[in-house]
């Protein structure tokens, strides 16, 4: 008998614009059926918005709001949908554990992690206080948190992302559940951290025989852990099969597309070599930046030297906190360096000194301002939600005093270049997909015709298919406009596929700078090597990963 089974399960959301009786018009999950055997790992994959999260949350009753569900959700022999709340509560947390995507937002910010784990024990067991405490420490140790006694007293804010996710896992396994539902548990994490978490999950599974439902849009990650894979699209089941069947002989076109996109993303491109790289455009020497907060000083970057040639794409990689964004914002003129010298096409940047009120941005010469622009990581935050796409793209032009007619023309031009459909121009960001937003952010950056664009993790928030679109766009801009990019990413695969040169920032300063092929094939620093080893690949097998 399967442990967990969806049987023709459908979810619809209410459309508030519709009359009360017919409001459940937004069918999100359609007649979904699959099952999970005890001890098995089933991966649910699909592009963003395909219903991965909604189906699982609705099935376990964790999706609140105006929804309607149909079909059956069986856990052992209980139908979770018709079970009274109280009995369902006895299953949640005890028999089914959850690990969600973003450990930062999924832990209560004002409770110590010890208390948050202990709560599960208090609720579902009759252990006394000391026994519970002991078990909490045991759990923390089990998931690999160093110095459990001390960390149990910490609030989530004081832990690293990886540690937080380990806390989530500790909570999920506290009562040795039969099933763990993990909704993109590693998407928010660094490659190296991601590897650690995946190892932990597989190890626990091996030890306790837990079944896992593992949601991800990253086929590479999935390939490392799944026994079986369920592919979703638009809320419908596309196909399902064992890992090997699916990866080697995908039956459906959609699955093939997904796999292709995953490969394409990190495949070095032939075209790259054809690029002609001009003389140095950006010259940076001895770049140093410290952040002062109260009495504490953080050194974000120290003594960095590099150049970016005309029309060149230079990748910046490195773990979180290594100073990637700091370099980006300084080059984009949003803050000043403390020391060093930076010139762009001969124009020097101010170093140190005063800022414009209200920002940390220095006064830059207007021609310098026009020459460099920035594209941010999160397309959701980088567009003003209250301005239309047209207004957003036009804003820099207006700021530089362009006439109305000229603005109109220029916006149309960059929209064309960035493949932004004209009908989108009058929309507000809320009505756009992530990929569209990122393209618009790029369009805005291009509006003034910059010679250098700093792109700070422009892909991190996008799903695989969309990532490919944006990569294509950047490459085509490089080719047609000769725009240079400083491309910041923690995703080495992507950088490998588009950058001519790579800057690797290690934990204690610059690890190495070099041509892409050289860095990726014969890394000179140990740190680069360790980064490379952590990248999940589509053809990793679960067996290899867990040993």
């Amino acid at each position: 008998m399967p442990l967990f089974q969806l049987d023709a399960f459908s979810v619809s959301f209410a459309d508030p614009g519709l009359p009360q009786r017919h409001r459940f018009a937004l069918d999100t999950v359609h007649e979904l059926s699959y099952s999970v055997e005890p001890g098995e790992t089933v991966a649910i994959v699909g592009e963003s918005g395909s219903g991965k999260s909604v189906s699982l949350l609705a099935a376990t009753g964790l999706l609140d709001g105006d929804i309607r569900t149909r079909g059956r959700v069986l856990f052992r022999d209980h139908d979770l949908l018709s079970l009274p709340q109280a009995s369902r509560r006895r299953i949640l947390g005890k028999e089914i554990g959850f690990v969600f995507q973003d450990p930062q937002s999924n832990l209560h910010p004002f409770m110590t992690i010890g208390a948050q784990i202990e709560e599960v024990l208090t609720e579902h067991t009759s252990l006394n206080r000391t026994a519970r405490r002991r078990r909490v420490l045991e759990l923390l140790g089990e998931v690999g948190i160093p110095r459990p006694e001390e960390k149990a007293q910490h609030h989530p804010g004081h832990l690293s992302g990886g540690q937080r996710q380990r806390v989530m896992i500790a909570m999920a396994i506290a009562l040795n559940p039969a099933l763990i539902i993990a909704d993109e548990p590693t998407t928010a994490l660094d490659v190296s951290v991601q590897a650690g978490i995946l190892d932990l999950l597989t190890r626990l599974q091996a030890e306790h025989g837990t079944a896992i439902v593992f949601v991800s849009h990253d086929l590479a990650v999935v390939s490392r852990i799944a026994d079986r894979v369920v592919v979703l699209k638009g809320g419908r089941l596309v196909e399902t099969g064992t890992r090997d069947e699916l990866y080697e002989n995908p039956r459906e076109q959609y699955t093939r597309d997904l796999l292709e996109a995953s490969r394409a993303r990190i495949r070095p491109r032939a075209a790259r070599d054809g690029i002609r790289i001009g003389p140095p455009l950006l010259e940076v020497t001895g770049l140093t930046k410290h952040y002062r907060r109260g009495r504490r000083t953080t050194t974000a970057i120290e003594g960095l030297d590099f150049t970016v040639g005309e029309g060149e794409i230079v990748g910046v990689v490195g773990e979180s906190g290594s100073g990637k964004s700091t370099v980006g914002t300084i080059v984009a003129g949003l803050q000043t360096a403390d020391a060093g010298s930076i010139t762009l096409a001969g124009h020097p940047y101010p170093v140190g000194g005063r800022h414009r009120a209200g920002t940390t941005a220095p006064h830059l010469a207007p021609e310098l301002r026009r020459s460099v622009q920035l594209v941010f990581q999160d397309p959701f935050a980088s567009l003003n939600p209250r301005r239309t796409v047209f207004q957003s793209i036009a804003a820099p032009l207006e700021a530089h005093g362009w006439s109305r007619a000229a603005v109109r023309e220029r916006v149309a031009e960059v929209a064309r270049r960035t493949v932004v459909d004209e009908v989108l121009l009058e929309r507000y960001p809320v009505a756009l997909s992530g990929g569209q937003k990122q393209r618009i952010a790029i369009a805005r950056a291009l509006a003034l015709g910059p010679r250098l664009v700093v792109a700070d993790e422009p892909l991190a928030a996008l799903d695989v298919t969309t990532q490919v679109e944006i990569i294509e766009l950047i490459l085509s801009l490089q080719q047609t406009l000769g725009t240079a990019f400083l491309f910041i990413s923690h995703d080495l695969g992507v950088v490998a596929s588009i950058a001519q040169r790579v800057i690797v920032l290690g934990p204690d300063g610059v690890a190495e700078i070099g041509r892409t092929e050289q860095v990726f094939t014969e890394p000179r620093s140990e740190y680069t090597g360790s980064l490379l080893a952590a990248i999940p690949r589509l053809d990793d097998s679960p067996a290899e990963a867990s040993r």
Partner: protein
Amino acid sequence: MTVLARRTSERRPRPSRGQRGRSDGGRSRLRAFLRDRAAIAGFVLIGLVVLGAVAAPLVAAIVGHGPLEQLADEALSDTGLPISGGNGFLLGADANGRDVFVRTLYGAQVSLFVGLTSTTIALVLGTAVGLVAGYVGGRTDTVLSSFTDIALAFPFLITALSVVTLNRGPQGDDLVDPAWVVIGIVALFSWTYFARLVRGLVIELKSRAFIQAAVGSGAGRTRIILTEILPNVLPAAVIYWAVQLPANIIGEASLSFLGVGIKAPTPSWGTMIANAQQTGLYQYQPWLLLAPAISLFITILGFNLVSTQARRRFDPRSSGR
């Protein structure tokens, strides 16, 4: 492992209901908003109140009672008790033989005028201060925030009581219309809330990427405040406006209760309520209290319904709640 996680708290917000796949989110939201039953009810209520205020002279002409006219013969018993209906007095009369219905309608003019004007002044002033303090930061922020703190620290009614005396010229005339004094005082004591709210929002917004993008593109400070930040704080400020409005209408009433509000015999809901309370006549003629109180209730309800629904529909920050 020394690696810290990136902060991704809002990386992929779940889209709000019904917005994906629509050709134009904004307009369809507006349409849905205009179809929303609660919002419609709110508009109807506000419409009623405005209609009442506008139609007051007309009603006065029809029933033949002016708002200040004392019709003791028709409306008071020999022992001075007002009728509570009849004789052409829809809602009866007050202790001076004035038509409560007509006065309530005229009261709408004064109350709405005082309430709307003072709250709007407070909104404008507070938003301006909040924008500048929040965006410019540093010493400017310290100064403006201290200023806000100082204004907040004044006990409203007590200071108001002393301020009102200032409005008497050497000839005993009011230097300015007392309604404006009330408006001024109420505005003076409510702009601070807007300033605090807006400042907080601005500080939060300031670090957002789209502001950084605007800075990076070379936009000036004023431009950023006006075109990038203001549109984002205005909705919240306007919603707060609807919350503050009844409080301000009641502020006027409280001043009247203490004898320093709108000058007698001009009717305002506040003075009418205060008067009903002070004479105790409401026990005999309930409309004295009910008419202005219900009007106020309707007004508040109207504005609140519209503003909460508007927020539900239009504020991208709220997930439709």
